[in-house]
């Protein structure tokens, strides 16, 4: 987990243009005297165990019941929006170009790498349907799903919110996101659908009716937006 901080990363100060800095011992800076951990971009990090994730999710569920999914999603959205602004700053500082000038896929890979280094998993973006207004994100090793194991339903609401928030801020257009396949449903990886709210609502409806990720993909590609 990371929170904004002003902690300076000494290695980054020495090598500000170094891009391949995701090795554990380089990306994180352990400040023993202060008892803090800063990452390459100056965020303060906290190392947590799987018990923490379980505690967070179960505690939330106990407090707000079924609304916990929506709460996690909202937390993700806010996180994604904030992180988009933070990313703009460090991207420009590191690459000396504005994010809008960069190759889109390169930009997105660069955004996600700190998350990979922090243990949130690796991803793969499928932009084939971008012109149609939606795209898919495959996530390998979700920290949430890996922790909860096979519980028979999607659990990565935090990630769905994170993607919705980040992309909404990036393209300046309201976007939503839904997890349509999850490691916690016994699948090998998680899959998210990102797009306008009407499409995501339709996907949520199909998912409730028992549709699989590939059913949803096919229906969206065939142009359906409702039942």
């Amino acid at each position, binding site marked *: 987990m990371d929170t904004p901080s002003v902690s300076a990363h000494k290695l980054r100060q020495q090598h500000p243009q170094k891009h*391949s800095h*995701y*090795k*554990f011992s380089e990306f994180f800076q352990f400040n023993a005297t202060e008892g803090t951990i800063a990452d390459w971009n100056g965020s303060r990090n906290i190392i947590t165990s799987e018990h923490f994730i379980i505690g967070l999710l179960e505690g939330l569920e106990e407090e707000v019941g079924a609304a916990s999914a929506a709460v996690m999603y909202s937390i993700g959205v806010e996180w994604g929006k904030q992180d988009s602004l933070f990313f703009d700053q460090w991207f420009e500082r590191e690459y000396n170009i504005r994010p809008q000038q960069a*190759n889109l*896929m*390169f930009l*997105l*890979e660069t955004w996600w790498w700190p998350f990979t280094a922090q243990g949130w998993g*690796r991803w793969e973006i499928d932009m084939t349907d971008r012109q149609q207004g939606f795209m898919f994100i495959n996530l390998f090793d979700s920290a949430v799903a890996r922790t909860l194991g096979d519980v028979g339903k999607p659990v990565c609401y935090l990630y769905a919110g994170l993607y919705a928030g980040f992309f909404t801020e990036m393209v300046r257009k309201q976007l939503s996101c839904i997890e349509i396949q999850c490691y916690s449903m016994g699948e090998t990886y998680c899959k998210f659908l990102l797009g306008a709210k009407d499409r995501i609502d339709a996907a949520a409806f199909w998912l409730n009716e028992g549709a699989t990720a590939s059913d949803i993909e096919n229906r969206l590609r065939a142009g359906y937006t409702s039942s």
Partner: protein
Amino acid sequence: MLSHIETLIREVDGRYATDNELLFMQNYLQTARLRFNAYQKIQKSERAIIQQVKQKLKATEPQLLRRGKADISAKWQRDTVRVLRFCAHAMLVADEEGLEESLLLWFQSIMRAFKAQQSCDITYKTMQDVVRQYLTPQEAELFCPILARARRLLGQ
């Protein structure tokens, strides 16, 4: 080597290391001179190696150095020099695993973002042939598997 040393420090923790645990150091010492020589040769011949690889690419797969109408050979050269240097360093310190963590895994996603896998595949395959002209067979035996690893990761 460096990854091995880190593991050794972690594992030994307040006792003496066993002979078996120190075996990697003996193996390293046996090849250290070779690694050092090969490293210096690559350093001295970097320019020639890169130029030769580029010429071969131009002759056989010229489209790999262009994106549409744009000539991307300068960018190709920057990327290739970077990988060659990291690989040479990994050979010097015998740390192929560290190479993945410090460069290849990140660079793989960047190469995919630019759809440069085919270019990487051919570049690091060609480079294995080219460096053999500059190294002895024993030195090449140490270095080429590292280039092969770079090819495998970046080329897919």
